C-alpha cells in the first residue's frame, strides 16, 4: 500500500484527475446504463421512445423497491432474503380482503376510496410484522440473518399458498387500482412511487444519524457499539424497514396485477440481489449508495425490455442478468485495484 498522499505535493491537475477518476468509479453503473441504453437505441428499431423508457421505469418499481430494503440490511452487515415472499404475502392479504373474484373476500368500504389507505396500511403491517420477527431473531438471539430470512422466505411463501388455497384472486376495486392506472405529468404513479422511495431512502442514508449509524455498524460493529450507538435498535429498524418496503411493493403489485396469485413475484429476490450487487452494495456490509442501486435496477429492466422488444426468448434475460452479476463482482474488485493505484 502506498501512502504518498501526505508527502507528495499535490498539484491542482493531479487532484482534478483524481477527482475525475473518483467520480467515474463512483458512478460507473450510470455510465454503463447510459452506454447500454444508447446501444439499444441504435441497434433496435423503435427502442428509442419515451414510452419504452417509462415502461422500463414502471417495470422497475417492484424489484426496485425490494432492492432498497435489501440494501439497508446489507449495508448494516446483514441481509433479508424474505422480501420477495413478504411482498407476495402483502399482495395476497390485500387481494383476499378486497378482491371480488376467485378467492377474494370482496370487502367493500364506504366511502369506496377508504380501501386505498386501508389496503396500504394492511400491506405495510404485514411487512412490519415479518420484518420485526426477522429482526428479533437476528438481534435478540444472534442468529445469522441468512438463515433467519431464508426460513422466513420459505415460511411466508407457504403462508401465501395456504391463505389463498392455491387459487388466484382478481378484481380489485377501482380505488385500489389508482397507483397502477393513473399518471402525473405523463409519468405513471408506479414510477413516481419508485422515484420517491429512492429519494427518501437516499436522504435517510446520507443525511440522518440513523443512516450514518447503519454504515458504521456495517463497517465495524464493535466500534459502533463502543461508541455508544444502539446497534440492536438500528439493525432491528433496518429489518422492519426492509419488511415495510416489501409490503409497500406488494401493495403496488396487487394494484398492478389487480389481484394476486400464489406464485406472485417469484424470482424477484434474485433480481433485487443482482441489482444491488451491480449497484455497488458490498455483501460484506458498510458500502453502497442507493443511486448506484437505482442504476442497477434500471440496467436490469432495460436489458429485459430490449430482449422483449427484440422478440428473443425470455430465458436469455436470465443468462444475461446472471452474467451481469458476475461481471459486477469482478468490476468491484477491479475498482478497488484502480482506487488503490490512482486515488
Amino acid at each position, binding site marked *: 500500500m502506498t*501512502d504518498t*498522499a*501526505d508527502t507528495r505535493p*499535490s498539484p491542482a491537475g493531479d487532484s482534478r484527475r483524481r477527482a475525475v477518476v473518483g467520480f467515474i468509479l463512483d458512478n460507473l453503473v450510470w455510465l454503463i446504463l447510459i452506454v447500454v441504453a444508447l446501444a439499444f437505441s441504435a441497434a433496435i428499431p423503435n427502442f428509442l421512445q419515451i414510452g419504452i423508457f417509462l415502461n422500463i421505469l414502471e417495470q422497475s418499481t417492484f424489484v426496485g423497491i425490494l432492492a432498497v430494503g435489501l440494501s439497508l440490511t446489507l449495508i448494516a452487515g446483514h441481509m433479508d432474503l424474505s422480501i420477495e415472499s413478504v411482498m407476495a404475502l402483502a399482495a395476497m392479504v390485500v387481494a383476499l380482503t378486497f378482491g371480488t373474484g376467485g378467492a377474494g373476500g370482496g370487502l367493500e368500504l364506504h366511502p369506496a376510496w377508504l380501501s386505498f389507505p386501508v389496503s396500504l396500511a394492511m400491506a405495510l403491517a404485514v411487512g412490519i410484522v415479518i420484518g420485526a420477527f426477522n429482526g428479533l431473531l437476528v438481534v435478540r438471539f444472534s442468529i445469522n440473518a441468512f438463515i433467519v430470512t431464508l426460513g422466513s422466505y420459505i415460511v411466508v411463501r407457504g403462508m401465501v399458498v395456504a391463505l389463498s388455497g392455491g387459487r388466484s384472486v382478481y378484481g380489485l376495486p377501482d380505488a385500489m387500482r389508482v397507483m397502477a392506472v393513473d399518471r402525473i405529468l405523463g409519468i405513471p404513479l408506479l414510477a413516481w412511487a419508485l422515484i420517491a422511495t429512492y429519494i427518501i431512502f437516499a436522504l435517510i442514508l446520507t*443525511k*440522518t*444519524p*440513523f443512516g*450514518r*449509524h447503519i*454504515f*458504521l455498524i*456495517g*463497517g*465495524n460493529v*464493535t*466500534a*459502533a*457499539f*463502543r*461508541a*455508544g*450507538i*444502539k446497534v440492536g435498535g438500528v439493525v432491528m429498524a433496518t429489518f422492519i424497514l426492509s419488511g415495510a418496503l416489501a409490503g409497500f411493493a406488494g401493495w403496488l403489485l396487487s394494484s398492478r396485477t389487480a389481484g394476486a396469485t400464489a406464485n406472485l413475484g417469484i424470482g424477484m429476490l434474485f433480481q433485487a440481489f443482482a441489482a444491488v450487487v451491480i449497484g455497488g452494495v458490498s455483501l460484506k456490509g*458498510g*458500502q453502497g449508495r442507493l443511486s448506484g442501486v437505482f442504476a442497477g435496477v434500471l440496467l436490469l429492466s432495460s436489458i429485459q425490455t430490449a430482449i422483449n422488444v427484440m422478440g428473443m426468448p425470455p430465458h436469455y434475460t436470465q443468462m444475461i442478468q446472471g452474467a451481469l452479476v458476475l461481471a459486477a463482482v469482478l468490476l468491484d474488485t477491479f475498482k478497488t485495484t484502480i482506487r488503490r493505484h490512482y*486515488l
Partner: protein
Amino acid sequence: MSKDQPLLVLDDIKMRFGAIEALRGVSFSVDGGEVVALLGDNGAGKSTLVKIIAGGQRATSGRVVFEGRDRQFDSPAEAKAAGIETVYQDLSLCTNVDVVANFFMGRELTRRVLGIPILRQKEMEQETAKALAAGGTSIPSLRVNVEHLSGGQRQAIELNRFVHWGGKLVLLDEPFAALGVEQTRRGLEMVERVRARGIGVILITHVMAQAFAAADRIVILRHGIVAGNVKTEETSPDEVVRMITGGIGRIARATENQPETGAGT
C-alpha cells in the same frame, strides 16, 4: 462532589469466567487530574478490568464507585454518558467511512428539519479539522475513508477523539502500540493535556518508560490482584518489574486488599 473524594474507586472487584478467576479482588482509586498507569503481565486482568469500568462487562462482585455513586455500566453507551471515554487496544474505527464520521461516531451533530434529525456535515468537518490541528495531526483530507490512512494516522484520530471529548475519566488500553517514537511523544503530550483539564486517566501500557513519563501513580496487577500501588516518584523501574513478575508486593496507599492467596473467595 468534594475535592478530596476520588473520581473512581474500585472496591474488591472480582471477575469469574467459569472456573477461571480473572480478577480476584482488585481495589484502587483514581483522582480527577491524576494519571494512573496500570501495568501487568499478559493475562494479569488488565483488559477485563477495562471492560468492567468502561461498560460491557459486569463484575461478578465488588463495587465500582464513580463520582461517589455506585455504578455498574451495562454498555459503553452508559459509561460514555457518565463521562468515561475509552481508547481500546484494537482500534475502534470504521474504515468504511471518512475521518469526520469516525471522529463524531455516536455523537453526530444534528439540526432538526420538520422534526427529523439531519447531520450537520460542515460543522462536524470544521470541528474535526480544528481538533486534529490542535493535536498536531495532519491528514490530507478529512473526507477520505479511513481505510486509505496509515496505522499511525488512524491511531492519531483515536487519540484526538479522546482529547476532544474528554469527559471525566479516560481509559487508554495500550494506546501507543502502533505509534512511532515521535507520535508516541505526542500521545503522551495528549495525556498531559487531558490531565491538565482535571480529567482522570488510566493508562494501560507494557512500556515502562511510558508509565514513568506520564503517570503520577503506578498500579501493578498480577494474577488478578493488585501487586503494587505506588507513587511514580517513589519507585523505580526495577522495583516495578519485580512487582510485575511477583518478586515483591507493595501497597503504598492505605487501600485494603485481598491477601495474595486469594483465600476467602
